[in-house]
């Protein structure tokens, strides 16, 4: 119990249901290759791991600092392009991976510092507008500099031998699972994601995190107490950007590909927003629930809707609303409802319900 407390930086789920859900997700992700064999489900599991980190890093901004940024995918993309460019230009080995990652982190740090110092002094609205413009500029840049980035097609690259799908650790499958590069990559992604998440959890529960919350609650007062709010906000912005960059590295590594559609697309930014808000802003655990729910819905809700749409054929409008391509409509509605009525999202509901019972 003490160990768990330390690991979670004292920020326990504080709800039996929440703990149960988190435990189930952790269990499923940890054993995904064994529980859900098949390429598609492993893809889903890896994406969940990576997006949990991405979404949690965004929550550090949105939920803990009260800043809306539309440039989070930019940092995600920098991570992806960083290793993609390094791996295609250099020898596709571990050193290229390290160089690419380090380079991407450096670029993200500088950019986030610039964006932060440039616009964090002003209102939330202005920051949101500027980041939107900057992110769209970056997306244009990535598609225009096709010599470097592969343009719209993106970059497909080789990963270190050890991580290649063809690589075999054991000659024979164990329990029907191939012990090869894919499995190794998955566990690399999984453990990195877990470590990054716990790191973020530590950050928000540290004195630094508490100052961020104080600023969010009352900027004027925090300023009066002697906190340099701009400094803290800029730090949060940088930390968040760096973690997003690492998530981008992991995603590119998993896909062995980086392109505008997997990283820089504005639709991904919208997805992140939905995941944070539905999961619960300002509750790191919300990113786990929000991401899992969203990505599972993205991949499986459509099947369900196809059935519903078919079943309601003949009724006007309803089949159109239930068309599988309209799954985002319903998540969008859920998002709006969350912002109005459940600002702490699912986690807030679970904790609230748990507290009442307890």
């Amino acid at each position: 119990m003490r160990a768990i407390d330390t690991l979670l930086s004292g920020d326990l789920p504080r709800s039996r249901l929440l703990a149960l859900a988190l435990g189930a997700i952790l269990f499923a992700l940890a054993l995904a290759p064994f529980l859900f064999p098949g390429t598609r489900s492993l893809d889903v599991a890896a994406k969940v791991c990576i997006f949990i980190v991405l979404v949690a890093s965004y929550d550090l901004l949105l939920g803990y600092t009260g800043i809306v940024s539309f440039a989070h995918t930019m940092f995600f993309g920098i991570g992806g392009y960083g290793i993609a460019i390094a791996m295609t230009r250099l020898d596709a080995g571990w050193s290229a991976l390290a160089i690419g990652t380090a380079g991407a982190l450096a670029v993200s740090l500088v950019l986030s510092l610039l964006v932060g110092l440039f616009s964090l002094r002003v209102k939330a609205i202005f920051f949101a507008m500027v980041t939107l413009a900057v992110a769209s500029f970056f997306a244009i840049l990535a598609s225009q500099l096709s010599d470097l980035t592969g343009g719209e097609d993106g970059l497909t690259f080789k990963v270190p031998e050890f991580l290649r799908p063809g690589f075999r650790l054991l000659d024979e499958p164990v329990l029907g699972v191939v012990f090869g590069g894919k499995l190794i990559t998955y566990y690399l992604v999984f453990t990195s994601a877990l470590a990054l998440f716990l790191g973020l959890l530590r950050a928000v529960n540290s004195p630094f995190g508490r100052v961020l919350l104080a600023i969010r609650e009352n900027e004027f007062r925090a300023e009066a107490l002697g906190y340099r709010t701009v400094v803290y906000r800029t730090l949060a912005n940088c930390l968040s950007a760096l973690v997003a960059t690492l998530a981008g590295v992991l995603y590119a590594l998993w896909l062995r590909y980086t392109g505008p559609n997997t990283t820089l697309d504005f639709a991904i930014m919208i997805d992140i927003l939905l995941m944070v808000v539905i999961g619960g802003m300002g509750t790191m655990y919300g990113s786990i629930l929000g991401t899992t729910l969203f990505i599972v819905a993205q991949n499986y809700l459509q099947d369900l809707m196809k059935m519903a749409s078919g079943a309601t054929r003949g009724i006007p409008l309803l089949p159109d609303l239930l068309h599988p391509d309209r799954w985002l409509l319903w998540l969008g509605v859920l998002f709006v409802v969350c912002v109005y009525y459940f600002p702490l999202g699912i986690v807030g509901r679970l904790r609230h319900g748990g507290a009442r019972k307890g």
Partner: protein
Amino acid sequence: MTQPSDDQGPLPQARIDTIPLLILAGVVIVAFFLIGSASTWVTLTIAGVAMGLLIFIMASGLTLVFGLMDVMNFAHGLFIAIGAYVGVSTMKAFSSAAGSESFLENLGALAPTLLGAVVVAGLIGAFFERVIIRPVYGQHLKQILITTGGMIVAEQLIHVIWGPDLLPLPRPETLRGSFLVGDVAIEKFRLVAVVVGLSVFAAMMLVLNRTKIGLLIRAGVENKEMVEAMGYRVRRLFVWVFIVGSALAGLGGALWGMYQENVTVHIGAQMMVLIFIVIIIGGLGSVGGCFVGALLVGLVANYVGYLSPKVALGSNILLMMIVLFWRPQGLYPVNRQ
């Protein structure tokens, strides 16, 4: 300490800050030398002005809405999309008039198209203000989130109603193509855009400067509290500004759709970035700044698009950066209390 009454002193002059206007003129002049060909330059300039005026139509409401109530509507692009799609449907319904060789009959298609876009966008604006915006007055974070959410849902609903495909939005017959003045080719529709854009700008200036409502809007942007302390309901005023702003975005959307001759679901989100850039450049809350900013963006986009197509898409953001480094509050900062 202030000076005692300076009755004998010289009369201070009312001055508009002309530097941004000079920059605008400078851009046009520099472009002339860079382009080298007078006819190309005229064509590009007209295209830039047309584009700038269309952006102004779409952006002006947003900047006033922000100025009055500190509300930033991230779903403003929705009204642009609505206008464009209503335009598609209306133009289709009047396709015989639009296909006629007679300019008057063409007008019979253009007028209901634009009117439809204005009315529907305005109505949806009224609904949006009541349902989405009003509950989150004064809460910036929620405002950004909720309007973004509204945009997501609305975009999906447009999918449901009009389908996911690119739809054609043809210009009426006599407004297609261009005519030649000397060796300068001028696209007819661009002239329509210029005429409508200038009319909207003139009407807006007239309202803002010569009517009591307009004075109240300007006063409210500066100091909302004082306007209320004088007994006026800024909220009611705001609702109307929001509706008119939405309707204008609809008008702009329909015109923009015709300008491009087709419409996609992303038209709103795409224009949103441009519009943000324009109102940031102009100074949040400033209509005059929005006008200059829109022209600047339109002209630069066209000039750069010709001179160096690769850079064109990003030119606006570079422009924004430069302006912000020079004047962090935009070209015409609004003095707000």
